[in-house]
Structure formats: structure tokens, C-alpha cells
């Protein structure tokens, strides 16, 4: 391994951020402004980095506001908002492997499903408390991620996408065909009441807090990774893997460990989701639409940024819920149209668009089309 400076030099334009990020931990927004700082040691004392606490303060305020919001919602709304939190966490987990590292994982739902099934099996068969099953689910998902990551992560582009999709579908079939452990296609129920219940059902209030905390943990992990040496290694791999390797980034180890981390977070959310649903089925927990939603949320918000997936997840989930209530039948149809328009007009995501539009004072959306069309 070379020094941090040498590693970051693999990424033109990020060198300066390495200097700015050595002492403080800039969030997405701060890091973006940090790019303007002069590339010298003095940059640590520039006015920009002195505001490095700002994103943390904003994050803390948002977290507090979400706790405060809870008392204003009735049960149905509470469930909806808890789902938004779940997707914030999922999008953030996918962001690690898909956004920062640039590996289009189209089988991310496999970790979600494994997490849910680990929790269900542990609670139903082994009578383990949910609070033990939760980390165990994350760990199992992380181990599976590392195991499949070793042979699959050398693949690139579409091939990695197809291979992970294949693993997800194959894992679902295996889970379906282990009825003694997983209940097979008929599903498995977690005992939540009576003597069999190891942990009482958390109810709408409890799951609101649980999903909020898990989402906060995911955002925190990504913020820390983003500012750390690992984060720079990931961006380097994303931009030019060979160059990153030649400058001392151990690409295989880096990719596998970030894939495991991403799987861990997804597994935690899957465990919470499985407990919330009580009865789970392979068709639901391994639904490929979960993966696709994660990807869309990250892309619309801004891949490879900390705040992007949060914005994307909140936006898409609220729009989807609004459409579901007002256009019950046509709602996926309209959602398809929204995805097409969003992808054509904002291929780099809201956060990156807003940043560059603000810097260049150019708010035209047509530039993106000019950039990517044939």
C-alpha cells in the first residue's frame, strides 16, 4: 500500500479532497465544496473545512426531526414512513457497491432475503431473541457476500450484473427447496405472541424507530467510508481499476470487503423487514423489484454520494405511495414513465446535477442529453 496521498492521486480531481478529508470527516455536501480548496496544507484551515461539522449537525437535526415526526403520524402513515426509512438504508447499502465502486449488483436482494430468513429461522426454530438474530442475519449475509464476491467481482459491467442476478435467483430456489428450515414456498412464520415468542412484536411505533435507526446507521457507515481511505480506494477502482491496482490499491480485497459490508447492511434491513412481516415467502423476500428499486433510488438521487440515496429513496417512495393512493390501477404504469424521464434528464442524479449546475450557473437539463446521446 502506498501512502494515502499516492492512492488518491490515482483519481484526478480527488487529490485535493484527500487533503481536506484527512482530519475531518466531510459529508457529501462538504466534500463537494472541499474540491474548491487550494491543494495545499493550508486547505485544512480554509473556511470550507471549518464547516465540516455542518453536515453532521444537519444529519443530527434530520434524525431528531424524524423522531419528532413520529408523534404526528397515525398508524398507517407510520408504516409508510418506516418503509421510506427501510429504502433509505437499502439504497445506501447498494450505494457502497454500485455507487462508489461502480459494480452494478443486480442481485442485492439476495442479502435482504437471507437476512429475513436467518431471523425467521433463528426465532422460529432456535428460539433466539430478535436482538441476537439481527446481527447474526447481517453476518450471514456478509459471509455470503464475501463468498460469492470472490469469484464474481473479477467480472465487469453487465457480466457482474447478470451473475449477481443469477446468484439471487438461484439462492431463492435453494431457500424454496429447504422446507424443513425455511417452510418452502408456503413461507415461515415468526412467533410473535404467546409462549413461543422470543421477542414481542414491536408494533408500528417500534418498527418506526427500528427502521429509522437502521437507516441512520447505514447513512453513517457510508459517510465514514466515503471520507476514509477505503472510500478513496473505491472511487479509484470505479474510475480506473488497473490504474488503482498499479498505485497500490489491493483491488480484490477492497472490493470483497465493501461487498461484504454492503451485504451486512442489507441483511440487517432484511432481518427487520422479516420480523415486521411476521410471515415471509421466498417470492416476496427475494423479489427482484427490491433490487431494481434500490438501483433507481441511488441513480436518481446521485450515486457515489452520501445524501443522494437518501433523497432518491424518500422521493421515489413518496411519489410511489402518492400514485398508489390516487391512481390505484395505473400506478406502476406512471412510475415506469417517471423512471424513463428521470433517467434521460438526470442520469447523474439530483445531487451531482445540483452541484454542477450551481457551480456553473447552468441549470439546463438538456446538457445531459447532449453528453450521452449518440
Amino acid at each position, binding site marked *: 500500500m502506498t501512502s494515502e496521498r499516492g492512492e488518491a492521486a490515482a483519481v484526478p480531481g480527488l487529490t485535493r479532497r484527500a487533503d481536506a478529508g484527512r482530519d475531518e470527516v466531510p459529508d457529501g455536501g462538504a466534500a463537494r465544496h472541499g474540491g474548491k480548496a487550494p491543494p495545499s496544507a493550508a486547505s485544512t484551515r480554509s473556511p470550507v473545512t471549518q464547516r465540516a461539522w455542518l453536515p453532521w449537525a444537519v444529519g443530527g437535526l434530520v434524525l431528531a426531526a424524524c423522531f419528532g415526526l413520529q408523534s404526528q403520524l397515525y398508524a398507517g402513515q407510520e408504516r409508510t414512513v418506516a418503509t421510506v426509512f427501510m429504502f433509505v438504508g437499502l439504497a445506501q447499502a447498494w450505494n457502497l457497491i454500485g455507487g462508489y465502486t461502480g459494480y452494478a449488483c443486480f442481485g442485492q436482494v439476495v442479502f435482504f432475503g437471507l437476512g429475513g430468513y436467518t431471523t425467521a429461522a433463528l426465532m422460529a426454530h432456535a428460539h433466539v431473541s430478535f436482538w441476537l438474530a439481527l446481527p447474526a442475519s447481517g453476518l450471514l449475509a456478509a459471509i455470503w457476500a464475501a463468498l460469492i464476491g470472490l469469484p*464474481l467481482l473479477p467480472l465487469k459491467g453487465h457480466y457482474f*450484473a447478470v451473475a449477481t442476478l*443469477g446468484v439471487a435467483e438461484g439462492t431463492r430456489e435453494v431457500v424454496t427447496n429447504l422446507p424443513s428450515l425455511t417452510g418452502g414456498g408456503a413461507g415461515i412464520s415468526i412467533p410473535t405472541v404467546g409462549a413461543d415468542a422470543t421477542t414481542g412484536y414491536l408494533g408500528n411505533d417500534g418498527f418506526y424507530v427500528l427502521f429509522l435507526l437502521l437507516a441512520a446507521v447505514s447513512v453513517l457507515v457510508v459517510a465514514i467510508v466515503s471520507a476514509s481511505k477505503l472510500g478513496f480506494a473505491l472511487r479509484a477502482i470505479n474510475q480506473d481499476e488497473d490504474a488503482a491496482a498499479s498505485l497500490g490499491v489491493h483491488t480484490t480485497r477492497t472490493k470483497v470487503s465493501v461487498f461484504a459490508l454492503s451485504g451486512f447492511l442489507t441483511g440487517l434491513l432484511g432481518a427487520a423487514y422479516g420480523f415486521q412481516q411476521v410471515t415471509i415467502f421466498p417470492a416476496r423476500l427475494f423479489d427482484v423489484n427490491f433490487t431494481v428499486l434500490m438501483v433507481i433510488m441511488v441513480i436518481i438521487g446521485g450515486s457515489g454520494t452520501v445524501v443522494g440515496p437518501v433523497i432518491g429513496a424518500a422521493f421515489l417512495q413518496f411519489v410511489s405511495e402518492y400514485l398508489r393512493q390516487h391512481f390505484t390501477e395505473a400506478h406502476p404504469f406512471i412510475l415506469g414513465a417517471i423512471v424513463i424521464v428521470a433517467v434521460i434528464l438526470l*442520469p447523474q442524479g439530483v445531487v451531482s446535477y445540483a452541484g454542477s449546475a450551481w457551480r456553473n450557473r447552468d441549470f439546463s437539463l438538456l446538457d445531459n442529453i447532449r453528453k450521452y446521446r*449518440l
Partner: protein
Amino acid sequence: MSQFFQATIYGLLQGGLLALIAAGFSLVWGVMNVVNLAHGAFVLVGAYLAWELSRVGVDPFLGMLVAALALFAAGYAIQRLLVNLVVNAPVFITLLLTFGLELLLVNGLILLFSADYRSIRTSYASRSLVLAGDVRVPVGRLLAFAVAIGITLALVALVRRTRTGLAIMATGMDRGAARLMGIRARHVYALTFGIGAAIAGAAGAMVGTVDTFSPADAGRFTLFSFVVAVLGGLGNMYGALLGGLVLGLVEAWGSQYLPGTLVNAVAFAVLVAVLIVRPSGLIGRAHYAARVEV
């Protein structure tokens, strides 16, 4: 023994159908590096067109031509107006665009035709030829298999013998160089996408004739196309046919000897194994697998 023989026959015929479903997908992926997640939806649009026509008395093998023509026009327009706008963007973008298209088409079909299962009825498709040892060959599947072989051969002839086909191959190998030679890449891409959609439409008519279908099948068709395209390999027009036959045989034999629905897991295990050991597929060109996709 006759059971094994029957499974082999069935696997080969099913493989031909899978090859037909995947041929257009493989072509589009190989030439444009676009993974078209809406491919399964195109297959279904073809199936519903042939189904509508069969209700006014048009034979599905004639309806197949109509479906192919209609989907060619639609595919050309979609590539020209939508996909060409993002064709240079990173991998995710085209994946998401075509996924949005899939949502649009599948849910449009549900709104139009409901989510019920349909099938195209003919007087001959459900009949069977009986071979020695009571091995049966369903006529409809045999005809669909013949169509799959015919379309693959036509595709090979198109790509090798016509100027348009050579332009498609050249653009697929190096778009920049092709444009310098005076090839209109936008038009060639749209043609390629149109041909892919047309084959999907024909495949849809065949699927409707031998099997039931509903809008919910779109994802399954796309997934099969994925597996077949990777298995056979890109850049070779026979790739989809070989991949389809191998997958059909593996599934048919697997369902004989494996319990439950575990046979589906076998298909994906084969896929992942091929990707790890030989990413260029069974007979694909290494050039396409090694291509760095940014």
C-alpha cells in the same frame, strides 16, 4: 430409457423456443452493449398481438409475421427516440431506462388485457407425433423449433451476406471506426433494436401457440434471455441457438432427476459457472466479454 428420450426431445424443442426468445436480446447486447430489460415485454406484446389476430381467425404463424413487423417499427422508434439518448451513459442508465420501459409495457398490457393467462388455440398445435417407444413430439413445439432454426439462419445470412448486416457487425465492433467509414450509427442501432424486437415479437406468437402467457411472464422471459445469451456467448449469431438448446436440455434432464423446483437453481448455477470459467460463452468472441464497459 424412453423417459430419458422423451425428456431429451422435450428439452431440444423447449431449447429452440428459448433460443428464439433470446436471439434478439443477444443481438442487441452484442452490437450495442445494451442489456434490454424490456425484451420480455416485447415478447409479450408479440404474443398479445398474435392472440388478438387469432380471435378474428388469423393463423398464429401468419400473425407472427404481423407481430414481427409491428414490433420492428416500434423497436426502431424506441431506439431512435429513447435509447439513443443515453447510449453513451454508464451501464446502470440503459438498464434503468429499459426497466422503465418494461414497467410501462407490462402494466399497459395488464390495463388492456388484464392479468389473466391466455393461450392461442389452433387445431393442430396440441396434436402429437408418436415415435417408437411411445415418445411424443408435440406439433406446435416442433413448428416453433423450426421457426427458431429458420430465424437464426436468416439472421446469419443477413449479417454475413448483406451490406446492412455488415454495417451492423462493424458498428458493434468499433462504432467510431464504423462512423468514419460512412455508416450512420444512429440508423444502424435503431435497425438492430428493431430486428431484436421483431424476433421477440415472432417468439411471442410462438410462445402463445404452445404455452399459456400473462403479463407477469415478462421478467421470466428476460431472465431466460440473459441466461441463454451469456451461455451461448455474444458476437456469434449461432450463440443464442446453442445457448437455448443447452439450457433446454439441462432443464429437461434436471427436472427428471431433481426434486421440487430445484431445477431452476441448476439453470442459474450453470450460468454463474459459465461466467466464471468462460465469460465469453460457449462459442462467443472473447472481444465482447473483455470489452470494458464504463
